[in-house]
């Protein structure tokens, strides 16, 4: 996995026609991934893109790299196999909210827990699109859909909470329309050694149009979201006058210049802090009382599964150089018949 050459996004485009609905947020995600791949500089033949089933999981067909469009929910398990077998590859996984968090929930949490060095792009449009409009595990409580005509009566997952609950060490969030942040977090995810989860909030123009509108609309996006950057104060707002402080055990939104608040009272983002408590709170902000956090919320280096396993193999082989099956069998309890 050498980052050694300059590529253009076009070199990561396959010859297949993209077949998402016009206006689908997945186009922006595809563009961001291709631009990130070009910037990353890992060759197409050293790159593998693995997906499950759903609209967003068609994405590997559109990328010029090695790719596998697998079965519903299993992308994390298959990507784990790809990366563990060959840690030299840059492995991307593209999955939707249903694929990743409903049918694939178990594989997702275990890939995160093991800290397999894969980049998970979790495309969250809060709906089942390919089956034409059923609620998903991220649909808001009360959401009306074809399978919840009276509104859902179940709480949704929050992907950040789930990732941290599974002891995840990299989580970032972006909006489909925010190409700059998308590329920024995808590049950080790709360079992070370990399992990285990027939640991309996307719009399903057909079955769930406007689900993230309260965050993405340009009239109030600056006031309802905050792009976190490591080492920088948590300041946001149209006029860059809002910020976050700690108040007791909670986060609180304040205005700089009001009630004696100055810029130095504002929290500085530490994405590398081992303790997850504050990352948990930042990930939980909804955009209502507190701005929804975009950018890299957590990026902490820890033992990486595929590397650790490779190391065990290397060590064991060094102990018994060029060991063949025949050599090993002779170490068993044997006897001669002559």
């Amino acid at each position, binding site marked *: 996995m050498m980052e050694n050459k300059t590529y253009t996004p076009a070199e990561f485009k*396959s010859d297949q026609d993209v077949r998402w609905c016009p206006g689908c947020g997945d186009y922006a995600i595809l563009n961001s991934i291709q631009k990130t791949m070009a910037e990353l500089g890992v060759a197409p033949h050293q790159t593998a893109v693995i997906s499950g089933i759903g609209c967003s999981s068609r994405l590997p*067909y559109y990328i010029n790299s090695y790719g596998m469009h697998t079965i519903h929910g299993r992308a994390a398990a298959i990507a*784990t196999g790809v990366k563990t077998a060959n840690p030299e590859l840059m492995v991307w996984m593209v999955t939707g909210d249903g694929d990743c968090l409903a049918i694939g929930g178990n594989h997702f949490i275990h890939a995160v827990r093991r800290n397999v060095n894969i980049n998970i792009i979790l495309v969250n449009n809060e709906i089942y699109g390919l089956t034409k409009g059923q609620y998903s595990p991220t649909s808001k409580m009360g959401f009306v859909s074809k399978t919840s005509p009276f509104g859902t009566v179940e709480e949704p997952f929050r992907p950040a909470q789930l990732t941290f609950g599974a002891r995840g060490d990299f989580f970032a969030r972006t909006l489909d329309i925010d190409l700059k942040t998308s590329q920024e977090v995808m590049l950080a995810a790709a360079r992070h050694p370990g399992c990285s989860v990027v939640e991309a909030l996307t719009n399903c123009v057909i079955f769930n149009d406007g689900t993230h509108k309260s965050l993405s609309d340009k009239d109030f996006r600056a006031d309802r979201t905050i792009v976190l950057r490591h080492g920088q104060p948590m300041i946001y707002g149209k006029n860059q006058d809002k910020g976050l402080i700690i108040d007791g055990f909670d986060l609180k939104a304040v205005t700089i210049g009001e009630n004696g608040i100055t810029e130095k009272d504002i929290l500085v983002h530490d994405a590398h802090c081992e303790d997850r408590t504050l990352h948990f709170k930042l990930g939980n902000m909804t955009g209502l009382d507190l701005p929804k956090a975009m950018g890299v919320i957590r990026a902490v280096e820890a033992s990486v599964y595929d590397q650790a396993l490779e190391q065990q193999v290397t060590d064991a082989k060094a102990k018994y150089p060029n060991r063949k099956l025949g050599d090993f069998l002779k170490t068993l309890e044997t006897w001669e018949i*002559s």
Partner: protein
Amino acid sequence: MSDTAKMTSLEKVVIRFSGDSGDGMQLTGSLFSNLSAIYGNEIATFPDFPSEIRAPQGSLSGVSGYQVHVGSTKIYTPGDLADVLIAMNPAALKVNKKHIKPNAIVIIDEDTFDKTGLGKAHFKTENPFLELGMTGIQLISAPISTMVKASLSESEMDGKSILRSKNMFALGLLCWLFNIPVDTAMHLLDNKFKKKPAILNANLKVLVDGYNFGNNTHASVSTYHIDATDMPKGTYTDVKGNQATAYGLIAASEKSGLPLFLGSYPITPATEILQELAARKDMGVKTIQAEDEIAGVCTAIGASFTGHLAATSTSGPGLALKSEAIGLAVMAELPLVVVDVQRGGPSTGLPTKTEQSDLYQALYGRNGESPCVVMAASTPANCFDYAYMASKLAVEHMTPVILLTDGFLANGSSAWRLPDLDNFPAIVPPFVHADMQATWKPYFRNPENGSRYWAIPGMEGFEHRIGGLEKDHCTSAISTDAKNHQRMTDLRQAKINRIADVIPTLEVQGTPDADLLLVGWGGTFGHLYSAVEELNAEGYKIALAHFNYISPLPRNTEEVLKRFPKVLVCELNMGQFAGYLRSKIAGIAPLQFNKVEGQPFMVEEIKDYVKSMINA
């Protein structure tokens, strides 16, 4: 040495070790079978244990058994009924009454046959032998617990640990009974417990005490000697089916040059395959203990995509969970070895017992027209050969291969001559080569066998996408075209059918002009072969056709089945292979002998059934 006048020479003997599941009977049994093998005897073993790890002490449900068949002639099975039973408590006696001959030698620890022990085993009287009607047995009653306590009274071990050495007393007694020098047993224990000197010393002392007890008391039975067999020269070890399966995969990895990857999830009775391979990192083996059965197979598919020899190991319920992913490997045409160590079903069924009831699941348990290779091993040792061949077929034909073994093969053991890999056929992965680059598509096929070519990440210029969606046979792009789907379906089936060109034809054993052909597959080989041998020795004319390749069937299957006036298919299920043969070969009407008791066949019951069919 016992009184030589009382030494009898035996051709074969079946010994059954039995006690609480914590009594160490599996260990005692395997040590005894190793001792016999070192002396040049043929061996076959079979453990029979409960799924409870430690059921209440002395209870009927907690009885664990281990049967060893030792012989001076070729041995194919662990034997039907035992000649010798070691019963460490009354429950073991009761449970095993049906497994021993009426005149068997029964060795008991008389200390456990007190009121409490008899009560736990639900005996109503104080004479369990009379109560069970075991009047013909030759009893060796030894106060094993008392003697072991006395023997180790000076040691610093606590009472519980001391009693754990009881099994070594029993082993010592058996060494005396079968005239095996106790030194050899001591040497085995030296190796087994070299890291635990306190336990080693206790066990050695008790072993010798057991031997001396037999010698001194001249217990009122004769002792036995089994002559060495005429086995081919070579280095041997004692191997269980699961171990042999793991080694076969390693051998295929070594021979093909593909690193081995196993994705698996612990499940009885397949877990040892994962354990064996997890320990073999020195040969570059990578294993993942996945979060579930589905992830087990999916990680393997991921590894296969990168160019590894990829396998997953499981048992029936796990195979059910893996079905969809195996379908992906069928569609993506990736090599994958799926080992199914069959157990009693359906559902959780009988986890520790053996059965052959996953055949239909292996053949048909996937959505869509989803053909793959199905094959079966037939002895603990040849699990090695068939794991090797499963890998070869998977890689060279770019297909999933399901290898069926079973609990009987997996845990049973036999003496195994260490293989020389030079004698195994080459495994040649069908990698793309540079001159294909300009025109190559993922679903281009080798005209010789219909297999697609393998391009793996890292190969420049061969970037491609595969997946579960149907692809165009020409461009390899997603396709829902009607004619293309039919064509791809036909191509996938034809690829499997053509594997019949490279597998061996079916061999017929026994009498060539037989009145009846016995047909079996997989783990029942030993019992069927023994039955055929014995029947022919009794003057019947019987032949045997035993299948290791099931999908596709060997080319001469129809000819063989139609050659004999009567065909009897024996299997440990309700007739799945018989049904499969009927569906594949027009105009045959095989008879069936089926059993689903969680136990292997008995040679006698097969013989009785064959006789009734001959006379019918």
